[in-house]
């Protein structure tokens, strides 16, 4: 819960700062910073995973687990939203871009 609170605070502070100040919404510096952070995180995670015998041994089974969960989650989201959309809007409403969401 502590981590969750910290993330909410950080996100709230960041959104407020971005909204109130003149930071560009398409900053190349920020984009590079985010990519740099991501590369550091992935390298450190990879290093930790490689140095951990238990993780290295479960790599194949956990990778397959992740892939199967992904396929199930994509199908689950699709099916549930399809059912909800049909319940709310019916079958006859216009296709993709012509909905009232616009």
């Amino acid at each position, binding site marked *: 819960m502590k981590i969750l609170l910290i993330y909410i605070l950080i996100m709230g502070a960041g959104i407020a*700062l971005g909204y109130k100040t003149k930071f560009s919404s398409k900053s190349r510096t920020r984009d590079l910073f985010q990519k740099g952070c991501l590369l550091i*995180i992935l390298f450190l995670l990879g*290093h930790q995973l490689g140095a951990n015998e238990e993780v290295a041994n479960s790599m194949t089974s956990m990778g397959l687990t992740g892939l199967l*969960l992904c396929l199930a989650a994509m199908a689950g989201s699709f099916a549930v939203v399809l059912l909800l959309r049909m319940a709310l809007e019916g079958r006859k409403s216009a296709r993709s871009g012509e909905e009232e969401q616009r």
Partner: protein
Amino acid sequence: MMILILLVVLVAGFVSGRLGLFAFLAPLESEAVIYVLYAMVFAISVGIGAQYRDGEGERLSFKALLYSVTTIAGSLLAACLMSIVLPVSAKDALICASGMGWYSLSTGLVYTYSPSLSVATFVYCVSREVLSIFIMPLLIKKFRRPEVVAVGGTATIQSSVACAAVTGDNTIVLYGLLVGTVISMLVPVLISFFMGI
């Protein structure tokens, strides 16, 4: 291309860990990952705030919010059911599925809970991003925006662009961005919640 670079960096880190290189990093890694994540989330949030200030953030409608929440519910329900046949508990499946495609954040968060589950989370998220780029343009020919965008989870922006290229309907990009943003904001909340159960 970016995904390829990310995979190469991850594999390079993994190989260096297996070979025992950069052993001095070991005591610092867990904390360093968290602090770098904090910095990254802050930078992303500043960008979101600036987008709304510039009027680039799409306005949230009740239906879009409902579809976003339903997208998450569908993923979690399916993952929970899949845990019956997979070598993970329902709780672990829910944690993994809560990543919703945001591999950079969720892999780091899940690592603090279980290093081996973070492997599954990374594969889950990257697969969702990559597969949705190919699947969404196929689905949009037969189905409508809400269910098609639901396939991508947080990774709807690139895949929505692919859809727009197929249909010529650019509104799906803005819609995908909106739904992806709502889901993204819930990812750290969901992962922390399920880890704390």
